[in-house]
């Protein structure tokens, strides 16, 4: 009962903030893309190819945030046995897999003209590919059991073990001498990126983030409905 009231309270808040994030996401994407594709200057070395960055980098943030969400939700589920956390981890996984796919594909498009190759096996690229496989493994494992709770628990352990990969992705460009350039935004002395390029990047970051929130809430609703449906079916069958 306690859990059900929790769920209701959560969905009250979620439903209230959903329209806000819908509007923000719908508004940010055109503005961000306008600045990214038209208003911002071309790079002096890369030319217009640099514009791929505005799609690529925020998607990478999204992929990491998704995994972080999934790992934290998994930890909460394992420790406090909170069903909402199980749903959250399940909801985040396909979204994260989608973001990771965007990162890999756009990165490949960017690499083709700039590096002369669509793919290299350097530390950053390989660790992001592993992230993609971890998402797929989680989805496969979480859905492989008759009992969704058991699947959620098994998946949660895998998500936590895979979380080792996150710092490896983040710092791979600093630890190893890779082809992938290191971050020019998160630096102690402030970003080394010009303001005209920083603005569209941040706009796109906000757009991606609000899209993530919208998709999370929609998927959580769907998963919760599916769960209620399952409980009703079981109750009907056992009557």
């Amino acid at each position, binding site marked *: 009962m306690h859990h059900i009231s929790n769920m209701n309270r959560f969905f009250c808040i979620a439903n209230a903030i959903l329209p806000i994030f819908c509007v923000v996401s719908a508004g940010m994407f055109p503005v961000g893309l306008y600045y990214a594709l038209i208003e911002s200057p071309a790079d002096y070395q890369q030319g217009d190819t640099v514009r791929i960055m505005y799609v690529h980098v925020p998607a990478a943030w999204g992929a990491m945030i998704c995994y972080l969400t999934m790992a934290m939700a998994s930890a909460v589920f*394992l420790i406090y046995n909170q069903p909402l956390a199980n749903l959250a981890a399940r909801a985040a996984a396909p979204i994260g897999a989608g973001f990771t796919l965007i990162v890999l594909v756009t990165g490949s498009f960017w690499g083709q003209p700039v590096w002369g190759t669509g793919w290299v096996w350097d530390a950053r690229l*390989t660790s992001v590919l*592993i992230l993609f*496989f*971890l998402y*797929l*493994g989680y989805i*496969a*494992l979480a859905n*492989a*059991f008759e009992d969704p709770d*058991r*699947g959620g*628990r*098994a998946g949660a*352990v*895998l998500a*936590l*073990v*895979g979380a080792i990969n996150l710092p490896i992705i983040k710092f791979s460009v600093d630890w190893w001498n890779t082809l992938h350039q290191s971050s020019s935004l998160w630096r102690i002395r402030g970003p080394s990126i010009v303001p005209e390029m920083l603005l569209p990047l941040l706009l796109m970051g906000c757009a991606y983030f609000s899209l993530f929130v919208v998709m999370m809430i929609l998927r959580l609703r769907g998963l919760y409905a599916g769960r209620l449906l399952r409980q009703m079916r079981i109750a009907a069958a056992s009557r």
Partner: protein
Amino acid sequence: MALFLAVIIRDLQLAKRHGTDIAMTLAFFVLVVALFPLGLSSAPVLLSKIAPAVLWVTVLLSAMLSFDQLFQKDYEDGWLEQLIFSGLPLSMLVLAKACAHWLITGLPMLLLAPLLAVGLNLPSKSYPITIFTMLLGTPVISLFGTLGAALVISARRPGLLITIIVLPLLIPVLIFAVSAIEATGDWSAIRVRLLFLGAILSAAIPLVGIAASNVLRQSLE
């Protein structure tokens, strides 16, 4: 400690009685390695270049075939449940199982590897490093495979599922092992890679112990 050894001895005895299971894994290992020289018969130079990768990828793939039954039978016949009352911590059980698995599959593969390396034209000065990487790498495979086997107890399609969830976790082992063998002659480069493998192994022991015992407890609830 006596219980720890008892679990290992029990698994070894079981393996002895179902000897064909190990033989099949090893046969798969030898067969797949043998396919490469046959497929590349026109390019022996290329073969010796890709030999470390062939060896290691085949080790990973054949190990994957040996995990799906690791806990399933123990779970079905109630042995796993009984073990909780034995007083042996579940994490020790997990490590004992991984240990036994390594003795049953990892060690034979390690012993076969030099023989297969001859067939793959691996330069003879790479042999000691190959053995070293296997010595450090195959226990990691056994550990992560044990975790995978615990995760997929009573799942649908356990064999395929283990492969999908465990192989990504083992990519670092493959990378460091193969690059160590390829760095033959450059001692400092080899040392760095072997240290990485050792670090992965020493991190995997507690990690798998904690994670897999947690999973086993859940599966018994």
